[in-house]
């Protein structure tokens, strides 16, 4: 299934855990350090460097781009480290996050409460995933280097819906199927 950013409510409703989705449009990168900074800014009533409403954040710290390329290798980092920072962003209308791995127990409830989806990209396939990124622009916190916030233009970026807005969990369901 193909989806376009910014995410609409209708698109969100149609996404079910297990769907393979191809994202086209704009997504923003942020990982540990950038999340800490953004949440500090929210707490201090400062404006954020990116529009959170209806956006998708990708948990990634890419390798530096070679001169002729838009981005280096850019696979997902482990999502649970961003869990403590998620709710303040959901309150501002964040519609999706992309990372890898299971998240804390309370996250599914939060996503259900605020209408947001958790996607997984395939970890460690960072050279492959870079092929779907058409451009990258540094937006904030350049001092964080690979952890800076970047605006990525992506075309058919492949991700799996992992936690949908209905509380479904792809990880739990699938692992139970293959447990012996």
């Amino acid at each position: 299934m193909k989806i376009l950013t910014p995410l609409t409510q209708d698109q969100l409703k149609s996404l079910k855990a297990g769907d393979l989705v191809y994202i086209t449009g704009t997504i923003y990168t942020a990982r540990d350090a950038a999340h800490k900074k953004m949440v500090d800014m929210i707490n201090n009533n400062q404006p954020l460097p990116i529009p959170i409403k209806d956006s998708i954040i990708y948990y990634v710290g890419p390798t530096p781009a070679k001169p002729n390329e838009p981005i280096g290798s850019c696979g997902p980092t482990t999502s649970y480290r961003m869990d403590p920072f998620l709710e303040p962003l959901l309150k501002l209308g964040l519609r999706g996050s992309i990372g890898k791995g299971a998240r804390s127990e309370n996250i599914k409830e939060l996503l259900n409460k605020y209408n947001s989806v958790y996607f997984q990209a395939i970890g460690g396939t960072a050279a492959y995933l870079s092929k779907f990124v058409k451009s990258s622009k540094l937006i904030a916190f350049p001092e964080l280097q690979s952890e800076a916030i970047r605006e990525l233009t992506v075309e058919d970026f492949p991700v799996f819906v992992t936690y949908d807005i209905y509380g479904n969990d792809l990880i739990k369901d699938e692992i139970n199927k293959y447990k012996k």
Partner: protein
Amino acid sequence: MRKLEKMKVIESVKRLCLDANFTLNGNILKKISSFKHTEESPIGKKILSQIEENSSIANTEKKPLCQDTGLVVVFLEMGKVIVDFDIYDAINEGVRRAYKEGYLRNSTLKHPLNRENTGDNTPAVVHTKLINADHIKITVAPKGGGSENMSRLKMLTPAEGYQGVKDFVLETVTIAEGKTCPPIIVGVGIGGNFEKSAILAKEALMRDIDDSSNDEIAKKLEKELLTEINNIGIGPMGFGGSTTALAVKVNTYPCHIAALPVAVNLQCHSARHKSVIL
């Protein structure tokens, strides 16, 4: 005795860092493709294919396999050669050059608590061993944070024994779920003491993926653990399936009468290590 050239060390470490980050060892790739045939989950199969495709893009385009190009771990095995320079400086210089010239990510911080980046991915973590040979061997293994973070160590009681070790390994893999980017290689260090068990586990990961231990007990553990881990159901990238681990490697060492240390070092599918003999 032969004199070692500083430039050779710098250049070799640089080359090893680049090769490790761009090219997955052929036998690891073969393992992945053989597991693809037996993988029961359709999503799992798809993920294993994506891993293969990633490795081919990385290799041809000289692009890092993974954006986490790691903290550089070096095993330095020193034979009888004359070294009239600081070999650790030379190793770090090799790392510095590779990470700059290869457009690799700097993932190393100056201090674990102030979290400031060193800017050149140095220093490497170097483990030195003296060997009775006329050469030196350098193994470079960039290690990502995802799988290292889920690694664990426990001082078991001797009474917990063989089953206790198995339970701890299975528990560690279960807790890690998809966070370690499975299919993983599981390095297990048993014995020695607290720090020795951790090194044993890391050294176990450097073994050839197709070998098995010469020690009968360790060999049995490796075989049983591989089957039991793959029965947990975690599967490729934790999306469910029958391929959670590609191999289990167990290294042991004599230990104290009161102790049974066990360390489990998890290695993601981006299992990068390369060696050279100088």
